[in-house]
């Protein structure tokens, strides 16, 4: 009983559901925030790269075309063209001849008079348009190179480069702001996740504690159902389960108590009678014989009760007799013939209106038990001059057995309990008439096992009417 709390204490943080939920949520949130922080910045950078490419190549193209128009490609000529075009805002403007010799350069220090072996100029001299751009050191560093072509021949190259920190600052500020928002969002998400998971796990813990309480035998344990989510549904199911358990436990206790009582009463009588015989030395033979007859009657009642208990027990264990096609009408007639002496003795008219060919699939013994118990009760709890009408008929794929008496009847408040074991409407009268309180329980269990239904209602004028419905069997032996 103490193993569970100990296990609870031993549970590590990483084994807790809350920890795992928080971890999963955090992983998801961090992944989303990482995406939120990286994608817009990357997309903005790509837009700037694209804009730079277009701008630099266009300017390089204009410069190359202008230089190609000069008679001679020279440093002075290039300087004039650059001045004329107003290309003064670039980080560097360089013009080379076909060999890569730098003719004009605005870089610091100037590379004029030296050979440029940059990848950009090398590719431009190979007649390619080149553009490179990268985002580093808080700035966009872009360069473009283009051949200067005249009459289909490359006579030189132009190289433009730019360092743009203005747009870089905007993107960096945007990135920083996104980061700040993300930190706040992450903190809020952590707090919310903790609250949410704590609430969830508390509810699970409550249910877990309730389960432990039930396991210890307290079937009255219930959990308060709040909301309408899956856990609430689970709570409701748990409550329903404990209610059933409680009811079953109560029935079991009552059954044990009732069974003990039912067995104790005849045993007490037997002992009393036996003691009387033994204690009276001069008892006359007639009295002794009367006492012994009473002992015999009580023993018979004990035997009947124990046989019925055994029958119910076998049914509880799922024991089923062999099913065969039984003509319910004929079986009812045969059973009623056995009850005829009792009916005659009680002054009750026993009538049977049984249609032929009403076949059902059932063990013969079960059919006998059902008809006998219902008809015997109808006779026992009848009044002198009363009647019992038993009928069997087929109707809509079912076979109906009806037993109606004109007896004392069953009060409406007792109707829901009459199939419970040892339940008696009138305990004194029932014992007096040899009832065990188990007959209707056996009928109920037997009918249910055959897939049938049993209904009880007051008789048309007085008494009680039991109607049992079975699945009908066609002539070939198959249930309809």
């Amino acid at each position: 009983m103490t193993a569970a709390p100990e296990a609870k204490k031993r549970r590590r943080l990483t084994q807790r559901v809350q920890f795992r939920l928080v971890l999963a949520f955090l992983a998801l949130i961090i992944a989303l925030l990482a995406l939120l922080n990286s994608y817009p910045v990357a997309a903005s950078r790509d837009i700037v790269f694209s804009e730079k490419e277009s701008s630099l190549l266009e300017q390089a193209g204009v410069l190359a075309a202008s230089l190609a128009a000069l008679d001679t490609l020279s440093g002075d000529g290039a300087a004039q063209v650059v001045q004329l075009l107003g290309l003064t805002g670039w980080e560097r403007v360089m013009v080379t001849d076909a060999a890569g010799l730098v003719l004009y350069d605005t870089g610091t220090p100037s590379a004029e008079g030296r050979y440029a072996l940059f990848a950009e100029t090398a590719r431009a001299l190979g007649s390619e348009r080149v553009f490179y751009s990268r985002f580093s050191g808080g700035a966009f560093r872009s360069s473009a190179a283009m051949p200067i072509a005249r009459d289909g021949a490359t006579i030189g190259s132009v190289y433009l480069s730019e360092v743009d920190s203005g747009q870089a600052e905007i993107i960096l500020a945007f990135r920083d702001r996104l980061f700040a928002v993300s930190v706040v969002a992450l903190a809020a998400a952590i707090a919310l996740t903790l609250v949410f998971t704590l609430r969830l796990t508390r509810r699970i813990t409550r249910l877990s504690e309730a389960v432990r309480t039930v396991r210890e035998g307290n079937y009255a344990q219930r959990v308060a159902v709040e909301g309408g989510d899956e856990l609430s549904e689970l709570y409701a199911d748990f409550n329903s389960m404990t209610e059933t358990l409680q009811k079953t436990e109560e029935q079991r206790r009552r059954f044990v108590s009732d069974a003990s009582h039912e067995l104790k009463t005849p045993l007490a009588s037997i002992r009393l009678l036996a003691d009387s015989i033994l204690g009276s030395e001069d008892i006359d033979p007639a009295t002794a014989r009367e006492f012994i007859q009473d002992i015999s009657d009580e023993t018979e009642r004990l035997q009947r009760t124990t046989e019925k208990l055994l029958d119910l027990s076998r049914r509880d264990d799922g024991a089923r007799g062999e099913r065969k096609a039984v003509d319910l009408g004929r079986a009812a007639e045969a059973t009623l013939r056995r009850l005829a002496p009792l009916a005659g003795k009680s002054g009750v008219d026993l009538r049977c209106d049984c249609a032929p060919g009403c076949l059902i699939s059932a063990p013969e013994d079960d059919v006998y038990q059902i008809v006998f118990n219902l008809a015997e009760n109808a006779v026992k709890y009848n009044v002198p001059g009363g009647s019992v009408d038993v009928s069997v008929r087929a109707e809509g794929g079912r076979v109906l057995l009806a037993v109606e008496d004109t007896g004392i009847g069953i009060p409406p408040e007792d109707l829901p309990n009459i199939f419970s074991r040892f339940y008696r409407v009138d305990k004194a009268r029932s014992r007096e008439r040899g009832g065990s309180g188990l007959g209707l329980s056996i009928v109920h269990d037997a009918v249910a096992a055959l897939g049938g239904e049993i209904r009880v209602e007051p008789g048309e004028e007085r008494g009680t009417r039991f109607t049992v419905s079975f699945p009908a069997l066609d002539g070939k032996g198959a249930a309809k």
Partner: protein
Amino acid sequence: MKRILCLALAGLALLALASCAAGGESVEVWRAVSPYYLEGGSAVRSETVRVDAGLSAIDAAVEAFNTGTDRPELRRALPEGVDVLGWTLDGGALTLAVSPGYASLAGRARTVADCCITLTFCAIEGVESVSVHALGAALSSSMTPDGFVLEPQAA
């Protein structure tokens, strides 16, 4: 266990022999970058080439310069059939005799060849400038590393 130890010792001995066989001199040689690999940076790049030991520094550099390269991103600075044939050193001025085909190089290819020769041979102690001659005629004179700008930032 002894067998494993013997095998390990034999392996070590083989490795030692192999390293002895691979002995020689390392020379840094400048090559042209293949057009496909021209993605920023410089159009020339150096690699280390091993040549036979016992050669003078200039002879070793000549041998290394004339050999081809296995690296796909680099190619020999001189075209096929054009080699450095000989050399003379006068003070710090190195004059290289090359195949006549050198004279047919023009434009960017010539600049790349001049640059690679200059950077390779000026790295040798005692060489300050390099001139290139073919059949007695001067093709390039007194080239120094300062005459070449390899990267935009290095200007």
